[in-house]
């Protein structure tokens, strides 16, 4: 068992999920509360990674963060190393790649909060920040949990973006899915079976936890 790859995968998924929640809560609230027609473009951009092939996303990020662009050169000057083929680069790629998996459940959960409650809060002087943290977050906590779990699992299982942007550097960018690919390429099916089983178990346990929570809630409302 490659514990280093497992630890790196879990660290990547945890950091990505934390960043995604911090970004997605205000972004989703803006999409629900905002009235500008430009928000349709923003929502489309936030959904794009869902339909874009991961290798395409990985390629564009690789080019964008490389030495040929001003952004890439700026980031390199700031960090002292290029983001491509580093753990930090993987985090950036994972955040973008898993963004829809955090935003979609949150938008659905926030939009399900009765508009009359939002109106009542506005009439009582609440600003958007207070509406989000006193109404949206507590009333849509199941959506928040779903967003966190889906973002985590999606990051654990990502392959195309990791391969394009991070390559295969042990301890820096070799995640479980890259390890699995290597094991299969080397005809080491016993190890591949163990790695795949870990990925499968992680996904089943986390999804079962979400759905059992939903079933309990439906049961209590019956």
């Amino acid at each position, binding site marked *: 068992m490659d514990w280093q790859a497992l630890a790196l995968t879990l660290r990547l998924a945890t950091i990505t999920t934390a960043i995604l929640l911090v970004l997605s809560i205000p972004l989703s609230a803006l999409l629900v509360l905002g009235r500008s027609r430009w928000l349709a473009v923003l929502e489309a951009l936030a959904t794009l990674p869902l339909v874009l092939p991961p290798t395409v996303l990985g390629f564009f990020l690789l080019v964008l963060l490389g030495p040929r662009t001003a952004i890439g050169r700026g980031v390199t000057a700031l960090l002292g190393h290029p983001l491509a083929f580093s753990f930090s680069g993987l985090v950036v790629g994972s955040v973008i790649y898993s963004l829809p998996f955090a935003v979609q459940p949150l938008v659905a959960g926030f939009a399900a909060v009765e508009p009359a409650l939002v109106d*009542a809060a506005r009439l*009582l*002087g609440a600003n958007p920040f207070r509406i989000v943290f006193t109404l949206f977050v507590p*009333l849509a906590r199941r959506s928040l949990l779903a967003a966190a779990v889906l973002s985590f699992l999606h990051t654990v299982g990502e392959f195309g973006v990791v391969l394009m942007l991070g390559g295969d550097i042990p301890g820096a960018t070799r995640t479980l899915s890259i390890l699995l690919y290597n094991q299969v390429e080397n005809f080491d099916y016993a190890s591949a079976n163990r790695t795949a089983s870990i990925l499968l178990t992680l996904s089943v346990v986390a999804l079962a936890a979400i759905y059992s929570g939903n079933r309990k809630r439906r049961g209590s409302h019956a």
Partner: protein
Amino acid sequence: MLEFALEVRRGSFHLQVDCHFASEWTVIFGPSGAGKSTLLRYLAGLDLPDRGNIALDGHALTDSARRIHLKPGHRKTALVAQQPALFPHMSVAANVGYGLAGLNRGRRAERIEEMLTLVDAANLEHRHPHDLSGGEAQRVALARALAPLPRLLLLDEPFSALDGAASDALLARLQAWLRGRNVQTILVTHDATDAYASGAEVALMREGRVVAIGPPEIALSAERQRIIERLGRGIERN
């Protein structure tokens, strides 16, 4: 005094009003779909009119020509709708205290107690909205709206879940409190008896326009005639 001139087009609905309410208690009466609730939403600042202005005691709340639109929580205006819209995850006390973020803990607790006592709901302080009856929820919604001490109170059929006697008792207590605090009130109703009972200035609305304004016996003379004729027909049948 509340002065407003508003114009709004939403699909086939056209709201066009231009009037001022000087009375401390005004009843807006009209059939369903006349635009009464819509008008209250614009007065409360929840929606932005296509054109127009709203001023309370000479201070502009909305003025499209001058690009002024104070946010709902900054207009000293409260709105209580038929649907109480209490925050379901908060206790009654937390609901009433929601608009009191600027007060310290002690003053907030005092104000919550004062408001709940006013609406005869002091015993509900620790309950949650899902434990309340429709009438109790409407009382709490009223206490929550009054807690920040508004200058203008907009009531959109807020006592529909209370029986007649309870509604009258609450209304009498509320009117005395509002008079003492100098709060101007606008009550929307489609029940003519509400308009007569309050003895207030009445504005009659139809199809998005205020078509009559004055004391109930003048503004509602046609409605009064209709009710009398209907009662007469009922008596003849029996």
